[in-house]
């Protein structure tokens, strides 16, 4: 295919603005897949994605339309995965900026649009869901003008669900998105914008050839790691792998090279020939850094190996997931895992429980703290229970974010309250249009990762959206709060809190624990303490009556079942010292909100 007839583009949008539905329509319209092959939202292959209605893995697909080759690269929409989005965009020359006509510009719309602009992509604005009764495309046009300077005549009105505007979109892609620049004669430079582990084929890298021609049977080199592999098979993507003899400059496709682990085939890395390498790698490669951590412990200690195996397998396809074995006096052997964000954490937890059948306890998510000790050394801690003795601490710093919140004007007050309660510092406010506002705050990451998003949604009746970026470390007045059950500290329940909130959080936590802890044959004191000082206390009363009142001849089987159920329930609890602690207790720490 003549490089002038190639168009590489992506669809960027805020979550639920209709990206996947539009992708479906484009595929249908261009005849890329037949109606009968159509499964709703084709590009989301994972069950979990489909269930939650979100895209986790980026995928790509080649369409042919009016003599042009159109490569559609799908991108994840969530703030946790912005690095993956940026790499997908680096493979494109244009992007459809999709906005829901009833919602307007939201946080990820803006975030992704800026990413696209920073990659010098041509932006084709599309207002979607015009079929909805509460659609207000005119309002969105105003927002587009105010925020991006986009004129009305550049905008396409569409309804992916109804199939309206699809032809216009394809025409716009052909007319407005430039063909890729690059030369097939230059030394090979191919960008890995995604990779996926397949149990039969090994890692499949999704690539965009920028310069040169990639052929199978050649020796290639990953420029980031220096590792050399053989290009076993290359080809294009069309709902399945289609092997080809070559991929030329400007084209998008896949590469199988016998790599066993996605870490060796890193998103953002450049592939070149080992015999005739390019002088420089393509710009923008960054090793992925996890931001949020938590401990995963199998409820059943015998499951440890199984969990290890499961994490290994998950990591094959998730370059951002990190894990390391760790031990807890309370919970035994487990793993400290690192994630891009809370959504990433929840997805991994759910996959471990569902796909691998693991009963697990997750400790509260934590961030990395930077501690300067009194002897001037600096340490990084990702687990509250490994905090040093308070006497040795000179300063504690925590990661801060620049938080952007989009909201209808009427909720500004509540959102300000929420953010300030979470130790956010108000930085500015801008009107997107007369009814919608963009707020910015500097706020600690630790306050955002526990339930902030849910609370933002509740106080704005679901209308607000948020995005954030890491801006560095700042010192805070933080302390470690310990939880003691029956006089024993439970390391897995320890929390880092701001000193001024410690009493309040300690009391709340003690009350929640009292609620979820079952009665024992003895009274259980529940205490929150900072250092040696107990700041909150509750007592779980002892069990007083627990006996089946009635059991006659015909009841035996049924009552046995009841007792067996009670017994099973106990097994799912973790015994810490002399106290049985249910999973909910750890969740209580996790969900310590308001």
């Amino acid at each position: 295919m003549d490089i002038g007839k190639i168009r590489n583009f992506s669809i960027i949008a805020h979550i639920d603005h209709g990206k996947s539905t539009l992708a479906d329509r484009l595929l249908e319209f261009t005849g890329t897949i037949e109606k009968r092959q159509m499964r709703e939202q084709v590009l989301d292959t994972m069950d979990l994605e489909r269930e939650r209605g979100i895209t986790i893995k980026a995928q790509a697909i080649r369409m042919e339309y009016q003599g042009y080759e159109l490569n559609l690269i799908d991108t994840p929409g969530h703030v946790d995965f912005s690095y993956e989005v940026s790499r997908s965009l680096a493979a494109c020359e244009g992007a459809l900026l999709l906005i829901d006509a009833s919602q307007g510009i939201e946080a990820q719309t803006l975030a992704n649009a800026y990413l696209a602009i920073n990659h010098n992509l041509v932006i084709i604005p599309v207002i979607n869901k015009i079929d909805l009764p509460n659609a207000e495309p005119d309002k969105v046009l105003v927002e587009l003008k105010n925020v991006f300077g986009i004129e009305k005549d550049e905008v396409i009105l569409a309804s992916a669900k109804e199939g309206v505007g699809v032809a216009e979109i394809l025409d716009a892609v052909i007319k407005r998105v430039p063909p890729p620049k690059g030369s097939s004669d230059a030394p090979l430079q191919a960008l890995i914008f995604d990779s996926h582990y397949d149990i039969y084929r090994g890692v499949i890298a999704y690539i965009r050839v920028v310069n040169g021609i990639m052929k199978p049977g050649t020796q290639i080199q990953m420029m980031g790691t220096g590792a050399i592999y053989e290009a076993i098979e290359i080809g294009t993507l069309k709902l399945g792998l289609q092997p080809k003899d070559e991929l030329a400059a400007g084209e998008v496709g896949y590469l199988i090279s016998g790599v066993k682990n996605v870490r060796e085939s890193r998103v953002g890395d450049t592939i070149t020939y080992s015999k005739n390498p390019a002088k420089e790698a393509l710009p923008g490669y960054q090793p992925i850094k996890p931001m949020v951590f938590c401990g995963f412990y199998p409820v059943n200690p015998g499951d440890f190996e199984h969990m290890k195996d499961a994490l290994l397998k998950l990591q094959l396809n998730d370059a951002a997931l990190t894990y390391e074995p760790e031990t807890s006096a309370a919970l035994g052997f487990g793993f400290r895992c690192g994630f891009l964000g809370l959504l990433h954490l929840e997805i991994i937890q759910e996959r471990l429980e569902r796909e691998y059948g693991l009963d697990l306890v997750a400790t509260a998510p934590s961030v990395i703290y930077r501690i300067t000790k009194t002897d001037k050394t600096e340490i990084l801690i990702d687990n509250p229970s490994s905090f040093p003795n308070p006497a040795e601490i000179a300063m504690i710093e925590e990661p801060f974010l620049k938080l952007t919140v989009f909201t209808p004007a009427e909720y500004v007050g509540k959102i300000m309250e929420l953010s300030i309660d979470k130790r956010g510092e108000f930085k500015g406010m801008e009107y997107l249009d007369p009814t919608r506002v963009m707020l910015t705050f500097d706020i600690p990451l630790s306050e955002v990762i526990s339930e902030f998003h849910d609370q933002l949604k509740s106080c704005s009746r679901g209308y607000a959206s948020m995005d954030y970026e890491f801006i560095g470390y700042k010192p805070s007045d933080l302390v470690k709060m310990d939880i003691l059950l029956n006089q024993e500290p439970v390391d897995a329940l320890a929390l880092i809190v701001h000193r001024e909130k410690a009493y309040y959080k300690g009391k709340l936590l003690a009350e929640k624990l009292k609620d979820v802890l079952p009665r024992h044959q003895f009274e259980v004191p529940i205490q929150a303490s900072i250092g040696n000082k107990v700041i909150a206390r509750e007592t779980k009363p002892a069990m007083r009556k627990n006996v089946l009142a009635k059991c006659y001849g015909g009841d035996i089987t049924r009552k046995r079942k009841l007792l067996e159920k009670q017994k099973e329930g106990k097994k799912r609890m973790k015994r810490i010292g002399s106290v049985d602690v249910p999973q909910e207790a750890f969740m209580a720490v996790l969900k310590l909100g308001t």
Partner: protein
Amino acid sequence: MLSIPFGLYIHIPFCKKKCAYCDFVSYANKETLIDSYVEALVNEIKASPLLFPSPSKMERSGTSESSDGVRSIYFGGGTPTLLTPPHFEKILNVLITDYGSRVTDYEISVEANPGTADKAKLKALRQLGINRLSIGMQSFNDKHLKTHGRIHDGRTAIRFYEDARAAGFDNINLDLIFALPGQTLEEWKSDLQTAIDLKPEHISAYNLIIEEGTPLWHLTHPNLQITDYGLRVTDHGLRITSEDEEAAMYEHTIATLTAESYKQYEISNFSRPGYECHHNINYWKMGNWLGIGAAAHSHVDGKIWANPNCIEEYIMDAGRRQPDKTGTPADEKREAIFMGLRLLDGLPEEKFTGFENELNGLIAEGLLERSGGNIRLTRKGLMLGNLVFEKFI
């Protein structure tokens, strides 16, 4: 000829109205089926190899060996007193008259509900040989009786008791329930005292269990957890008793009845010496029992089986099934412990072979104790019995 001793249970699944807490197999508005049901009972009795191993031999010799196994008869329900004296006569005749029997020497109990029999009916039942009456009082507090869908009020209940005495019953049990939603300790104390003042020979005092699927269940917290035994206050207007209130009511019950010379012989059962319910003791001692009628359960010679719950299905099949041939084996050892410990005297230590670890652990925890060759619940074990039973099931 084998004559294993066994208790005979006959189920009468008819009710005028279902109570809010009831999860027994019983049906309202099916009284038109009573006649055919009684026919079916008679057929099942006649066809039971346990009751009549070889009828032809019986007819020849005319002896009563066949029914010699029966040691107690219990008519349970539902509301057995919805049957008429002729119905009872028909059933008992099969055992007493047709094949001759000394069955009336044993305990024959009938469950009765105030409002379903007058003095004349009670007298007729007494004359048929029924010698024990178990009256479903539950409470004497009209407000509670109403919430729970009972068809009588406190005064009717007391009058019924007096009628029963007048009819000649000298072995009467009163069934009571405490920890009704909304009930206070004071209200229970009052109910208990009213019962004691009537001077029955036997009192069963049960802690209410809110069973899944009953109207009371639906009125209470939908996430009632079975793992955490405490019941919680709901937002439906019906206040559920807390674990602590239940404990207080139960402790009061034991203390008061003991002081009034009722002996607690089982977790919920109290009686004057000599007036324990033999039929029920057979259950707790894991003897043999034969169940006749819809939904009735049997446990004979290590095998268990049950009749279908549906009345119509039962009527169609009775007399033609051979359930005791298809029964599944009971988990004898564990069940013997689980049931035997319900009796306050406990059961012999030999029954615990294979469970020495559990036994020693529970003794160390103060939940079980040795007493004259037996193992029994301590007072603490009585209150926390499930913790003990769990170890053996």
